[in-house]
Each structure stands twice: as C-alpha cells, then as structure tokens.
C-alpha cells in the first residue's frame, strides 16, 4: 500500500519534472540566437525563403503555442522529425536550399531508439567496473580507518578525480590502442569497443563512490549496534556482511541517483571522443547543428530516465531502511 502511494506520488511529480525540463529546453532553444532554418537552408538562401520555411515549420508562432503543439504530439508518441538528418541515414549537413530530396527527415524517436541501447550498454559496463573497483577499495578503506587501505583509497580517489575525462580518453587511446593495441578505440564494431570508453567513465565515477563507501562503512562501524552485536554473540563477519553493508548501502544508493546526471555529461564527452554511436554523440551533434526536435526529444527521454532511476533508487532505499521517508 505504501509502495503504491509512493509510486503514484513520485510518478506524478516525475511528469511535472519532465514537463518543466521540456519547457526549459524548448524555450532556451528558441530564445538563444542562432537560427536553425538558416542552417538547414544553407547560407546562400534568400531572406524571404527563410521566412517562408520558418513559418511553414511553425517556428514563428509564439513559444507557448509551439510548446503546446509539440507536447500534444509527444503524448501521441510522435517526437517529431529531425531538422537535419535525412531518413536515409546520409551524412548530415545542409544540402542546397532548393534540393527537393530534403523532404524526408528521420523520425526523432527512431534516432533515439537506435542510439539508446548503445549508451545503456556503455552505462552498464561502466557501472559494473566502477562498482566492483570502488567496492574493493572503499570497503577495505572503511574497515581500516587510518590504515593503509584507507590511505590508498584516499590517494586513488584524489588522483582519479583530477584526471579530465577527455584527456584520459586521449591518453588511454594512445597507450592501449595505438601503442599496445590491446583494445579498439574509435567507433563501434563489437562489444570490445565498449570497454575503453567504459574504463574512462568508470575512472570518472569511482572517486565519489569510493569516498562515500569509505565514509559510510567507517561511520557504521562506530554505531552502537556493531559492538552490541559482538556481545550478543554475532560474529564479526556476519555483522559486517549482514548489517554494516546494508546500512552503508543507503547513502551509496542516494549517491548513484545523483551521479546519473554527471554520468550523462561524461557519456557525452566520452562518446564524442571515441566516436561511439550512442545517445551522447547524438546529443552533441544535435546541439551543434541546432536540430531542435532531436534536442527536445533527447531532453525528454533523458529526464524521463532520470526520474525513473531516482524513483527506483528511492524505492530501494526505503525498502532497505524503513526510517526514510520519501
């Protein structure tokens, strides 16, 4: 019953958030200078034609009207068509303004659905690597406050967080791909292409995870129930595995929810560097080409994912710790 209540409340709020985000992006795009029509039609097109095309596309209507029209079609599952990319997958960029084959544009939804699984795969591998690594380093550090595992965790996280992800990508490409040839780097041609980008992202994610784990585990170890547990007859391993880890995972979960947003930022850069055909690459290109519908579509999808992830994280957290109230 509580779960149902929680879900309904959060999903409603989630819809509001998604709506807010969409409106924000929508407005931002139209308010900030840079005319997509000009980009589409090519630099040589006459003013009058630009105006006509813009009017036809509804870009000169008041923003609220445009937004309403847009949301209307979204609710019907139509995220619109890209301004730029042609349906046949040809290279982007403006053709001549009177090129009639311009008419067929790729559907935004299709583009997103093609790119999404790639990014999800990248995210999954990243999480796996990051969690595994951080757990080993972080838990060891938390169980030995002041000892060498603790210091090691401290230095590792400080160094990792100081490496700019784009730079690391370049360096790792140089070392592991060019010089040593162990892993492939650019593009995508099989699962192995996910590994290098995932490593870069994992290096970016780990420091915060490690620090949180070290803090959470070490503070749980000072809780009364740990020492009382010893006198009640519970063994040390059991206390750590069953109780301390349980309690320590709550702040970690919270963190994962928040981290998603910065992970997305990192994904964009990393996909750009490695030319990995995921949502990130799609986004950068979309923004640089002022492809409004695509940008909006991506914004909606990512904020929806964000909302869902946060709901899941909070739900799991309340399942573990009943004192929490979300």
């Amino acid at each position, binding site marked *: *019953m*509580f779960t*149902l*209540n929680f879900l*309904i409340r959060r999903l409603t709020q989630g819809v509001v958030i998604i709506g807010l985000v969409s409106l924000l992006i929508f407005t931002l795009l139209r308010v900030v200078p840079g005319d997509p029509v000009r980009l589409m039609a090519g630099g040589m097109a006459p003013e009058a034609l630009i105006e006509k095309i813009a009017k036809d596309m509804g870009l000169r209507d008041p923003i609220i009207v445009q937004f309403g029209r847009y949301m209307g079609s979204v609710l019907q599952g139509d995220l619109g068509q890209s301004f730029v990319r042609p349906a046949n997958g040809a290279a982007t960029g403006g053709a001549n303004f009177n090129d009639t084959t311009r008419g067929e544009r790729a559907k935004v939804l299709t583009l997103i659905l093609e790119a999404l699984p790639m990014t999800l795969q990248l995210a999954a591998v990243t999480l796996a690597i990051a969690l595994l690594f951080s757990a080993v380093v972080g838990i060891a550090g938390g169980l030995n406050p002041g000892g060498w595992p603790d210091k090691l965790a401290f230095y590792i996280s400080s160094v990792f967080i100081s490496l700019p992800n784009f730079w690391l990508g370049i360096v790792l490409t140089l070392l592991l791909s060019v010089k040593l040839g162990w892993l492939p780097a650019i593009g995508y041609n099989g699962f192995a292409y996910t590994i290098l980008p995932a490593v870069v992202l994992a290096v970016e994610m780990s420091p915060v995870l490690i620090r949180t784990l070290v803090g959470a585990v070490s503070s749980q170890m000072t*809780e*009364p*129930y740990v*020492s*009382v*547990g*010893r*006198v*009640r*007859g*519970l*063994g040390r391993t*059991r206390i750590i595995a*069953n*109780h301390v880890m*349980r*309690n320590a995972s*709550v702040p970690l979960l919270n963190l994962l929810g928040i981290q998603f947003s910065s992970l997305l930022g990192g994904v964009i850069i990393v996909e750009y560097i490695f030319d990995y055909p995921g949502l990130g690459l799609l986004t950068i290109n979309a923004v640089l080409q002022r492809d409004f519908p695509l940008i909006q579509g991506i914004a909606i999808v990512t904020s929806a994912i964000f909302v869902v992830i946060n709901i899941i994280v909070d739900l799991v957290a309340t399942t*573990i*710790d*009943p*004192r929490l109230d979300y």
Partner: protein
Amino acid sequence: MAALLELRNMTVALGRSETAKVILDDVSFSLAPREIVGVVGASASGKTVLSRAAVNWLEPPLTRRSGTVLFEGRDIYAMKEADMRALRQRVSYVGANPMGALDPTLPVGAQIVEKMRAVMPDVSRRQAEDRVIALLDAVRIPSARNRFHDYPSQFSGGMMQRALIVDALVTNPSVLVADNVTQPLDVTVAAQVIRLIKELTDQFDTAVLFISSSLPMVREASSRTLVIDRGRIVEEQATEALVASPIHPYTRELVAQTPQIWRGAGAVPALPAEREVVLSLRDASQTYRVKKRNGIGGVNLVRAVRNVTFDVWRGDSFAIVGESGCGKSTLMRLLSRLELPSAGQILCEGKDIATLRGRDLLAFRARLQLVLQDPFGSLPPRTSIGRMLEEPLRTHGWRDKEKLRARVLKVMSEVGLAAELYNELPLGLSAGQRQRVNVARALVLEPTILIMDETLSALDQAEQFKLLDLFQALQKEYNLTYIFISHDLAMVRKVCNRVAVMYLGEVFELADNQRLFFDPGHPYTMALLSAMPTLEEKRYKPEDCLLEGEPPSPLSIPAGCSFKSRCPRAMEICNGEQPFLTVRDEQDFAACHLVARTMSPAERASP
C-alpha cells in the same frame, strides 16, 4: 549453592601504561543460580565497566590488568574466540541504551532470531521464530506476532528495552547482566521489567546481576547488594539489611541522600496565601494531523492534549507529571507558545496568548521563559556564553553594550557562573554548568513565570540538589512562579506545592502536594505512586494497584475513560462516559467516576 559466575580480583585500567587510571580495583564477588545481586554506585564509579568485565566485553582503551572471571569454573578470558562466542548463549547482557542496540534496517524479530541461531546453530528458523514470539508475549509487548515484524524505529524506548531483554533471554541463559536497564524507562514500565526478571529467575534458575545508580531501584530488584565507589566494592550485604543498617560511610551517605517520600519529607512547599492567577488554561487541546503511511492520502489524528483546564497562581511551584506519551511535552509547547492550541485558550495574566502580536508578544516572551532539558543540545556550540546570554536582550531591543554586559554579568553571578566564562565557548562546561547557563538565559529578561522542562533529568543527584537550592533562592528573591514538567516524583514531592497528573493527554488529577501523595483520588495516581521505588515502606502496595500492559495508542483513544483498560477498579460506567475533573474538597480535582460518585450533585460542578 555453587557459584555460577565468579569475579576474582578484577582490575581494569584505562590504557596499557603503568600510570593509566584504574577504573576497577581488585573487585571480587560471585553469583549463584536464582540469585539477583544488585550493584549500586554513582555515575563514574565504574559499575558499567564492571558489568562489561563480567561478560568479557572490554574494548580498548580499557585493559584488564589482573584478575579474571570464571563461569562454571572456566576462565572466560583464557578461552578462544569461538568458545567465547558459544558461551554467549549462556551469559547474556542487556545495556542501558535500547535505541541504538539493533540494526535499524531490519525487523526486530528477525534480528533476535538471527542472534539465537548464531549461538545455537541447531535450532531451526521455525523454532526460533516461535520462541521469540512467545517471549515477546511474556514481556507483555502487545500483539507480539505483529510486532515481530516491526522495525526498531517503531518501538518506544520502553518496548525496545523489553525487546532487548527478550534478546538476552531467548537462549535461556544461566547468567543475565542487566546494566542500568531501568533508567530510561517510566516508573510503571520499570516495575514491570523488574517483575519480569524476578519471574524468570524463578522459572529458569537464572542468576542476575542488576546494576543501577538508584539505590531504591536496586532494592526493588535484588536480594543481595554490592556498593561500588571509585572502582572498589565498599560493602556487600543482604539488601534489606543494607538499607536498614548500612555499615560503610559511603553507603550511609548514599542512604541518607536518597530523597524520602513518605516518612518525614520535611516541610513541603505550601500554597500561596493569595491566589493570584498568572496562567490559566481553558479547555486547551492540541491535535496533530499525521499523514498515513499506508494507503493513499488520509490523515491520522493524534490527540496529544485533550481539554486541559487549570489555573496557576503566582508563587506556585506547579508540577505537571506523567509518563512518556502523556502529553506533557506538548503541553509545555503550548504554554510557551511554541505552538498554538487547536482548541481552547491559554491566558497569561488575563490575555489569550494566541492573539498576541508584535510588541505584546515580545512582552509576553519576557514574562514567561523556558529552561530546557538537554544541557548539550540547547547551547549553540559556537557562540560564547556572554553572547548567548545577551541574545534575548538584544532581541528585545537592548542596544547599549555597557548595560548588556552589566545585566549579563549580574545574572551569571546569580546562578553561580564565574564571570570569566563570559567569553568562553560552551565546549568544556559540565552538564551542571550548562544547565546553569540555560537558567541564566531564561532569567536574563527578568521573567515572572519559569517553565522547567525536565531540567534536572540529565544531571546526577548532587548537581540536582545544588540546582534545586538555586531555584528556591531565586524564587524567594523574585517571587517567581515555577512550572515543573517532570517524571521524577521524588523531586516533585520535595519541591512542588501543587501537582497535576497527566495521562494520554488529559489531566487526571490536580491536588496539592500532601493530598496527592497521601490521599490520591485517581487510581492511576495510586498506581504511579505504588510503582515508585523507595527505601521506605511503600504506602501503596503494587499488588493492589496492578498496572499491566501499555496505554492505548493516541491514534485511537477509546470512548469513555481512557484508563479503563488498565484500571483495577473499572466499572460499567467507565466504558461509556468520560469522567471530567471533579472537585474534591475545594481545590483538589480528580477525573474519575469513583470520585464523581461520592460527590453530591451540587458539588459536581466542574472548575
């Protein structure tokens, strides 16, 4: 009877070096089956360390210097880790802080089952669960089967303590060490716990080591008592003999200092000659709306204070007493206008305080002040004492630095704080000194009414006495009116002239000191008084005043008298009609049908 647990020459120090402070000095005693042995001592006397040493739970920096503990002849300090762990089945420990003792993220029942199966691996999950539920029932936790699945945060302090006792007893231990287990509990719950422990020694031949800082409490529980002072056992006698004729000077001091309630309490404060009403409550009620956790929307109504009506006179030392959950904290918040009542009125010198605004509100704040309970949480850690005391004055418009300083210094000297503390942070102050700062902060505006919210509960006996003397002196000098909110009836007996007893949000009885203690009108008051531990002969026998189980939940207060489920003298009428405060001889009131019945209709007018 052969000794079950024996401490031999136990010496424990704080650290490994030669010069480390010695906490326990050559302590020896033994425990036989079916015995309850009490250990009584002041707060830093080493009794907690003693209790932990007895079960091999000394954590660094505590170090065992010499001596050992034998259980059934085996040295528990020489055992291997695994053997010691197995021994936890036979030797159990319950401490004083129930709230942090279990993992907050797992249900209580599951954790007790976990403990049981950890030390008794042959027991099946099913068997363990059944046993735990049976025991939870035995300690009278209501609806044990449901409570089994509840989380620690859903248990009250008293229930949690009982759950931990279940945790200790689930394996049928031969020895139970109970360290200060009754301290956080209400008087009636503590009485239940002690009764339970006694029953269990009868049933299972358990030997119990009962540790407490309260001699009356130890007297309730144990047959033989040890007195510990600064790490040494100074006396050991059968309990009754110890209380009647203590031998060691320390014990004699301890007995002499225990406040007397029944015999010769000395002069109790009298009622003021003139009855000038300074504070008046008229049907004040407070209801909270709490969102339902299950189900969609909807609120639960928690009726924390219900139709409270009484007057406080100038010069009174008025006490509001009751157990946890009775509503006295909420009432305190209403009186100090931290919250406004959802119904009814509170009048201060004739004016309804809910309607005060602006300047009038500020003036009210100057007249009625509150001295808080927690000496550590109530002082902002990064403000100097002087600054802290100046703050209320500044809020009331004082600007002149000289005047501010002068007033603050004056108040500081009145409460006994050295003038040098003006610029210091509260960091190094003791609990007693901190409470003095709290009193000073309340006095700096020269109020006429002071509310003391459990102000003395966090202090030990000696500090309490000193502060009580201070209060008396201040009252005499400034003709202050005090309102004490407390659960310590012994303190109330000594200090207050009028007492109101609260239960589940209502005032059950209101009488002057002598009347309340010697001729209570309400069965609940009688039960409360009978549960109070004391060194003297008890005036009311607990057996007559039976108090079982828990009060009903404030979410669903039953119709009729809210006490009927636990009242030994409940009648038919108690199910239907709620009794109101009825007059008994002029100014004493009790809300009980028993009283109403013996009154004539003319006298039954409500106050």
